[in-house]
């Protein structure tokens, strides 16, 4: 299990997704190693007025605990954090989340660009960014920010995506290290985890 030649320098994984990403993300969360060591920060487009149900839906099969962080909550290892409905979610220096109700970005709140961009700023080369299926371009700039800060970038293979606008937009504007199917993303993450003991 050493296909990607990884090491244990990474501090966090951030994942963005929109239309057509729910199945993929569920599959990822249910197939990760139960002792997964890194925080998984998720920003998925969702209905603005539906506050409840998403965490529960993701939790059904997830091997890790899924929660929506409170404003100023610390980022902890081995937890899945989901951006809450109708808030933007940022990561701050000092390794905690902050939330905001600013204007929508790319017609979205939460905006993937914001979560990915601020994570890139905080974790720099110690971050892995993953962008899944989606019908708009939110997230592409965020992936570019991650790459510019030295992070590692992965998009879901556009051929496998229900709607490939989002990963394709990222491929258009920045260097992407790996184009993987959901199964590939799972083995990538589990190989990564094997370096953390």
């Amino acid at each position, binding site marked *: 299990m050493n296909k990607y030649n990884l090491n244990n320098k990474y501090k966090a994984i951030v994942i963005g997704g929109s239309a057509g990403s729910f199945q993929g993300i569920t599959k990822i969360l249910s197939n990760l190693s139960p002792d997964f060591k890194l925080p998984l920060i998720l920003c998925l487009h969702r209905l603005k*007025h539906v*506050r409840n149900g998403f965490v529960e839906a993701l939790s059904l099969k997830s091997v890790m605990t899924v929660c*929506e*962080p*409170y*404003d*100023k*909550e610390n980022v902890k290892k081995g937890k899945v954090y989901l951006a*809450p409905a*109708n*808030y*933007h979610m*940022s*990561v*701050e*220096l000092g390794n905690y989340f*902050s*939330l*905001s*109700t*600013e*204007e929508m970005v790319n017609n979205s709140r939460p905006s993937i660009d*914001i979560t990915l961009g*601020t994570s890139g*700023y905080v974790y720099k080369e110690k971050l892995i960014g993953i962008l899944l299926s989606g019908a708009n371009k939110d997230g592409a700039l965020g992936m570019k920010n991650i790459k510019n800060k030295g992070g590692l970038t992965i998009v879901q293979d556009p051929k496998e995506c229900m709607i490939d606008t989002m990963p394709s937009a990222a491929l258009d504007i920045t260097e992407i290290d790996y184009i993987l199917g959901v199964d590939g993303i799972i083995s990538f993450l589990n190989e990564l985890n094997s370096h953390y003991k």
Partner: protein
Amino acid sequence: MAEIEIADIKKIAEVVKNKYNYDFTNYAMSSFKRRIQRILDLYKINNVNALLKRISEDSAFFEEFLVEITVNVTEMFRDPSFWRVLRDDIIPSIMLNHDKIRIWHAGCSSGEEVFSMAILLKEMGVLENTQIIATDLDKEILKKAKSGKYSLKNMELNKKNYVRFQGNSSIEEYYTEQKGIAVMNPSLVENVSFREHDLVQGEVFNKFDLVLCRNVMIYFNQTLQNNVLKKFHESLFKFGYLIIGSKESLIWCDIANKFIVVNNEEKVYKKYKD
């Protein structure tokens, strides 16, 4: 364009503090940085130094800066389930012991929540028994709140929220359409006092049964959240209510133990100890 650095943000906060006496030193970093970037983009200012120059030389520009640096995105009846709890549980429980309800909207922005509250109280038949003080640090946004004018596009969202709130009328009853703008019925806010007040540096100025401050403290760092919470504590009568945004928490504040949780889902707290 070069990325805005923490040092730039500190410089901006310093100039604003020295020249205009508003203190943004303890604002949450990433949203504040986005606000600065937004101002640079909106006014086509090339870099932070040019912005600093403009702020220090042009006080009319600073008024506009103040409008943009604070986040003024809000909705009527945001989180309808919260407004139902307010109507069905909180206001009735205050009314048990008081003839008159005193409410403070801290950081009221363009006034959507003030109008939501007024509509709610009117539908309960207690608007006349209520004294509301609505404050913001930005006097331009207060003018907007007072005028009660909102775009019809925003009213569509407000209407959806109102329907989910299950009000006993229809939101159209509370405004008239004038030249493509929704103008709220002024009688709703007849008894509301809109005042300039700076949560960061301002003094405690009154005592209340209910303080509403939803999604305001998320723009502050924890030091400032702590300070502001102390002011809210001081501004509440014993057993008065404090309400914050659905994803805010008091847990990590120094004086959290002086409050009890009344409704965790909707973030309703009660002052329990002096």
